[in-house]
């Protein structure tokens, strides 16, 4: 007992202080107010957690601060929204990305032969810039006059309504031409990614693998184009629930793919160079948000229609009644609480349990935990740790994108939301301890609750004992609460709650 006190006295003292503060805040508060604040806080925490868990895993394993996490979250949200409300946009743009990817994969495999012909460093640098200009020029040419606004306009009209006609879609011939040009535009891009110096050359994929990947990408793209009308009618004909499920899958998959692309193209060449990686992801996040605004417009979208499970216009008396009634809100100690938020909490808990099990029980989880401490030693055991890096990056990005999709029916979708949620997720990771999965969970829980209590403090004020007055905070306080908490935690434990001292 005594030595526990000696070793953790700062922590224990802080806990006591926190408890006293909470008791003061909640003193005289009715249980129903208490409960609804708690639930709101946990809802926010679940959303923060979907971003923070990926940030923490990626930082822990690869020492990469992924500033693009918020942008991936936004991309996930928009892809999900498109799948849900405007599959036309989805079917008409996805093949473009596949075409560029196909060109890049092909050129990356055979780019070595180009670089081997150029013998001077200066020459290689000039060729690199020429390729960049070429790629940008061809890509710009390929998407010139593409009716993106008109496609986007269906977003609102198509919600739940009848299937619109084929207007605003370009004829298939034009689309195929665009795809062909984009494929060509992907070629210089892929060459830029190919190993340039002799000693950078690595064993290459067998030719048949490369060709099959390229053909598969192009084939899927063409299939989407040819089947775009059928596909659109099919998706819009589905029930809201099925479309929501599709949105979840599409958004999460898109996040995973974006993650893989970022890791292989931008992060992998710069391991051991964290500042470069940080600046690259930061720059990329700005570009991605601009791209999102270009495709989907700068103005936000109102909350998406939630699945029918959460949308009946009634109020259930208990969670059990809700299972049969599917009401929009449920009675929690006499106060209405939106049931969709319970779903968000459930997703957060599910992800926590699933990723926790993956880390603790599976071989890849074991490798991740070992790699967090010493990835070089993991490699020395004969494990291809780079492949694990890519997997973790994809996983983290997929979770962020999943967060983006499930937030859509709750807060709507707008380009700026990535920055807001990313900041909170970063603070949560710092509070919990960089690289600690449990820390990310605890950090987000603290922040979510603090935010909910802070908002209540602003709206209703706190009854301070002995002063006999009610003190109300300004909205700035509620927003600053997370930073304040971070400052306090870092003063007590500089490495975060679960952080390890270096």
């Amino acid at each position, binding site marked *: 007992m005594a030595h526990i006190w000696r070793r953790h006295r700062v922590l224990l003292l802080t806990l006591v202080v926190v408890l006293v503060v909470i008791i003061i805040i909640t003193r005289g508060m009715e249980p129903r107010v208490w409960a609804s604040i708690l639930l709101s806080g946990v809802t926010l925490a679940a959303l923060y957690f979907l971003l923070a868990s990926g940030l923490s895993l990626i930082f822990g394993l690869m020492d990469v601060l992924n500033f693009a996490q918020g942008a991936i979250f936004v991309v996930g949200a928009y892809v999900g929204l498109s799948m849900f409300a405007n599959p036309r946009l989805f079917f008409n743009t996805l093949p473009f990305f596949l075409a560029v990817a196909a060109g890049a994969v092909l050129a990356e495999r055979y780019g070595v032969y180009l670089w081997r012909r150029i013998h001077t460093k200066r020459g290689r640098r000039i060729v690199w810039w020429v390729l960049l200009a070429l790629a940008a020029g061809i890509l710009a040419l390929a998407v010139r006059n593409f009716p993106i606004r008109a496609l986007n306009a269906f977003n609102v009209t198509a919600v739940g309504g009848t299937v619109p006609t084929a207007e605003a879609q370009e004829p298939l011939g034009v689309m195929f031409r665009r795809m062909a040009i984009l494929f060509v535009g992907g070629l210089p891009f892929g060459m830029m990614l190919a190993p340039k110096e002799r*000693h950078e050359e*690595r*064993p290459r994929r067998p030719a048949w693998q490369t060709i099959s990947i390229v053909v598969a990408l192009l084939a899927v793209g063409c299939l989407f184009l040819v089947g775009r009308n059928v596909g659109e009618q099919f998706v819009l004909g589905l029930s809201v629930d099925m479309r929501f499920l599709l949105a979840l899958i599409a958004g999460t998959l898109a996040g995973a793919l974006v993650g893989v692309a970022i890791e292989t193209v931008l992060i992998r060449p710069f391991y051991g160079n964290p500042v470069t990686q940080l600046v690259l992801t930061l720059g990329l996040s700005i570009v991605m948000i601009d791209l999102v605004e270009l495709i989907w417009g700068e103005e936000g979208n109102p909350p998406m229609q939630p699945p029918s499970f959460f949308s009946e216009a009634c109020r259930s008396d208990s969670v059990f009644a809700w299972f049969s009634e599917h009401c929009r809100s449920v009675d929690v100690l006499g106060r209405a609480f939106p049931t969709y938020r319970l779903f968000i909490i459930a997703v957060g808990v599910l992800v926590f349990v699933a990723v926790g099990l993956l880390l603790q029980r599976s*071989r890849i989880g*074991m*490798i991740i*935990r*070992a790699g*967090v*401490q*010493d990835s*070089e*030693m*993991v*490699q*020395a*055991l*004969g*494990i*291809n*740790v*780079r492949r694990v890096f890519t997997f973790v990056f994809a996983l983290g990005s997929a979770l962020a994108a999943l967060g983006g999709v499930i937030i859509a029916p709750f807060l709507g979708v707008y380009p700026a939301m990535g920055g807001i949620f990313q900041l909170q997720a970063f603070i949560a990771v710092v509070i919990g301890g960089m690289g600690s999965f449990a820390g990310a969970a605890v950090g987000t829980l603290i922040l979510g609750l603090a935010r909910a209590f802070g908002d209540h403090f602003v709206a209703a004020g706190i009854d301070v004992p002995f002063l006999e007055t009610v003190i109300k905070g300004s909205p700035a306080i509620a927003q600053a609460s997370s930073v304040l908490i971070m400052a306090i935690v870092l003063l007590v434990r500089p490495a975060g709650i679960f952080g390890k001292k270096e």
Partner: protein
Amino acid sequence: MDNVLEVRDIHTFIGQFHILEGVSLEVPDGCITAVLGRNGAGKTTTLKSVLGLTPPREGSIAFNGEEIQGQPAHQIASKGIGYVPEHRAIFRDLSVEENLKIAERKKGDLARRADFIFGVFPDLKRLIKLPGGNLSGGQQQMLAIARALVPDNRLLLIDEPSEGLAPVIIEQVMEAVRQLSAHATVLLVEQNFIMASQLADRYTIIEAGRSVKSGMMADLVDDQETIRRYLGAA
């Protein structure tokens, strides 16, 4: 007698520093070969270069007759090279069992080798569920060596196994290395000349990034001149 490992004139850079300026060495099958030299001579970098953790820019490395330089480290290790790094580098957050299990290259490696491993290191069996970080320094060293024994490795690279250990523990580690050398060829880096001279059959001395002398350990022990010149006191 075949050479398991042949290193020919490798040059390794770390950042812009030219660490190895021409190291050559041979590791004959079934022997313990010691790499000797002063602090900072490039002994650890030599091991890391063999494994591809710090890939050499020039020179060649042949393992089992196959040229391996330039391949990624995980591929080189999978060919049958075990690595016991300095400071042990066991995974502190993983249990002893997980520390062994993670080294498996085929499913069931650990089960197949368990008798041999726990025969050499009976202590580990008792500690199997403990986190690696809770082990003492000597136990961690045992675990690091045991980890390299889990897959079928033909060559073991062992870096400073006696570092920071009490004399009694050093005796145990030496005994373990002697036992496992019956099963695999060993390339040993060791500051402790007495330990190295008792264990090794052959030696190579590295001085300022160059291999300067190699031969039979039995001859070196009597060669006071060489010992004084390259290894300082002894």
